[in-house]
């Protein structure tokens, strides 16, 4: 058994490098995916029918196709249409576009919890829609959907493993490299699992903290 532990300990510094790449891509994708999700959710309620149609097609596509395919599409197909994107960017864009669709759906769910009276009151005061979203709806909805958002963010972090296919050497790919070099799959994959767990646990702890500090918005 000590040799197994030695294999794991030796692998740790290299896996840490992969984990940093996983964190970079995932955190950027979260930071970009959230505004994308909010924009989609707002667009879903827009007066323009075409915009609503576009959003619903977009969400169906993002939800109905594997993330793997979406990553391949962004990296391999967009260049043939004239958009040449570096791999890191393509990866982050694919993750955020995918995540945005899921977040939009969570927001849509959260909206049902906002009493209609609040929207009517805002209209009665002829408050502009942008103000209404910013000051009335979004603070409440975002606080409300923090638990499912945690699920989405941890899912995204683990889904970022698929970025290896376009040449981003993140945690899972680093694991594959180490397995190939050491011929010790069991020990390496266990260590990779521990790294993912720690990152996801930290992310979940952060959102639990946010849940506590946003209690004030959860009057509904």
């Amino acid at each position: 058994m000590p040799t197994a532990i030695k294999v794991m300990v030796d692998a740790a510094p290299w896996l840490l490098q992969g984990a940093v790449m996983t964190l970079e891509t995932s955190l950027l994708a979260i930071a970009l995916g959230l505004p994308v999700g909010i924009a989609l959710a707002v667009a879903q309620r827009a007066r323009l029918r075409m915009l609503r149609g576009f959003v619903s097609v977009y969400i169906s596509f993002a939800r109905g196709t594997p993330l793997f395919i979406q990553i391949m599409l962004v990296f391999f197909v967009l260049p043939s249409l004239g958009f040449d994107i570096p791999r890191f960017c393509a990866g982050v864009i694919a993750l955020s576009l995918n995540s945005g669709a899921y977040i939009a759906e969570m927001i849509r769910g959260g909206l049902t919890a906002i009493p209609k009276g609040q929207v009517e009151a805002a209209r009665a005061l002829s408050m502009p829609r942008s103000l209404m979203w910013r000051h009335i709806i979004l603070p409440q909805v975002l606080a409300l959907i923090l638990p499912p958002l945690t699920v989405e963010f941890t899912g995204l972090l683990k889904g970022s493993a698929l970025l290896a296919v376009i040449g981003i050497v993140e945690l899972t790919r680093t694991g594959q490299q180490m397995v190939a070099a050491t011929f010790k799959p069991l020990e390496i994959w266990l260590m990779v699992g521990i790294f993912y767990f720690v990152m996801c646990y930290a992310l979940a702890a952060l959102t639990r903290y946010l849940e506590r500090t946003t209690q004030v918005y959860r009057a509904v």
Partner: protein
Amino acid sequence: MSSRLALCALLAVVGVTGQTAFATDLAEIKSRGTVVIGTEAAYAPFEYVEDGKIVGYDEDILNRIVAAWGVKLQQFDVPFAGILAGLDQKKFDFVATALIMNPDRVVKYAFTLPVARGDVVFAQLKGSHKMKGVDDLSGLVVGSGVPPGGPAVVLTHYNDKLKESGKGASNLLRFPSAPETFLALSNGQVDCVIQTDLVVQQAMKKQPDTFEIVGAVGDPFYIGWVARGDDTLLRDEVSAEIRKLRDSGELATLQEKWFGHRMEIPDSGYLPPGSK
């Protein structure tokens, strides 16, 4: 605000990681000053990562070629699933990773001069006696990589042939890579595995006294690198460098270093008719 920060960070990273580039011949690569290579660095001893760097037999050859050309090397480690797609979409100039010249590949991609020659072999646990010979797989569970990996494809065809005489395997189990296949062999999940002899020898080196080779299947095969099917000019320029290394004896030295034996690299006849 957080989104703006993220966008800035993203743009900064874009600036660092740079562009995608591809060339159709050496002149283009030289004028750019950098050659862009795709490698699946998870196939010891051909190419794998050690201490954070890609090393291996192919890597030694590649470094010599890049030095001869006087250009910089930009190399990406891409899993097998993305490597030929990446080549098609012009993400690399060519692919420097061990690829078996099988009939499906040679019509689509331009193979270089071979860098290695090997056999597809069956291996089992030392002294297990489960497998009597390569021509009888009946009642056995056979482990292999996932098609379109070379040995995995050989196994499919070979087993279909054996089935006609009732000597086919009872079950074929596929694994993501060679180390997992050998783990399954150690665990008893499979009775034997099929791999190239060059990789089996690597496994035997990593775990001494554990595995044994039962025998080879079919003809020996050649391993080379590939360029896009249309880029035969670039392919010829890479082949010319490999030929130089062969003729100077350097290739044989590298073969001794990584495989412990020498291989004969022919000038022609290694590709089936109809190849690029």
